[in-house]
């Protein structure tokens, strides 16, 4: 999937299948030299479910505004680093047609110790869901639906604090 494991960007919107190991390897390399080094990586992997609200999913289409999405990922990574010192965050989100069982998003957070890695990972996936300009179009046997949640607003502090509460409870 990647010709060189190390040249993968940690924040990216990708059309090809995602590789957890590739992103983890990149973050481990980035974190190894910082502070106490890299002892922990937490990841979150989003997978296409076979059913959605009781309907049979045929496939999904993810659409992204890629250049803005990468900037949003960077903003989230910066937020996470302000909260958890020396943590490195990666986000790979896939776009295009995805079948059941395929991975739509991989979030990874690397740190010296597990508490920071776990919290930063949870924070990041919550923020990605809140504000990344990425849309999910569900195709069922008998119709289709755009999934729409909240209006994305990176400056909305209530949303940011809700994500932080998920991670820091």
């Amino acid at each position, binding site marked *: 999937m990647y010709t060189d494991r190390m040249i993968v960007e940690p924040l990216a919107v990708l059309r090809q299948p995602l590789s957890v190991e590739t992103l983890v390897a990149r973050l481990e390399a980035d974190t190894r030299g910082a502070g106490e080094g890299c002892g922990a990586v937490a990841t979150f992997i989003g997978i296409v479910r076979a059913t959605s*609200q009781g309907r049979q999913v045929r496939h999904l289409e993810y*659409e992204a*505004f890629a*250049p*803005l999405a990468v*900037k949003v990922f960077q903003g989230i990574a910066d937020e996470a680093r302000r909260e958890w010192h020396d943590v490195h965050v990666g986000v790979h989100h896939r776009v295009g047609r995805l079948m059941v069982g395929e991975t739509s998003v991989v979030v990874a957070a690397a740190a010296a110790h597990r508490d920071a890695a776990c919290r930063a990972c949870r924070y990041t996936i*919550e923020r*990605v*869901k*809140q*504000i*990344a*300009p*990425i*849309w*999910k*179009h*569900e195709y069922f046997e008998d*119709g*289709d*639906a*755009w*999934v*729409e*949640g*909240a*209006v*994305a*607003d*990176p*400056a909305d502090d209530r949303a940011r604090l809700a994500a932080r509460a998920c991670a820091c409870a």
Partner: protein
Amino acid sequence: MRVTVQLFARLGDLAGRREETYDLAPGARAADVWQAVVTAHPDVRALAGAVSCAINADFAPLTAEVHDDDEVAFLPPVSGGAGQDDRHQR
């Protein structure tokens, strides 16, 4: 002055296209661009009030001034955290 407009996801579906150009008077703001889109594609009004805006791939308020050659994007609400009632089904 001419701006490129990008319409994402359901917004693009409602408009029937995802990218077009509009000619606007100098001094126009993002809200004026949105109004031009609504005029051209009345169906997008379904999302009025729930649209974010980006200018040249940075989030911007609808009050932001646009300039010649700008890329103005309108974004429907994103998928994340959507609940039971946030599906727009066909």
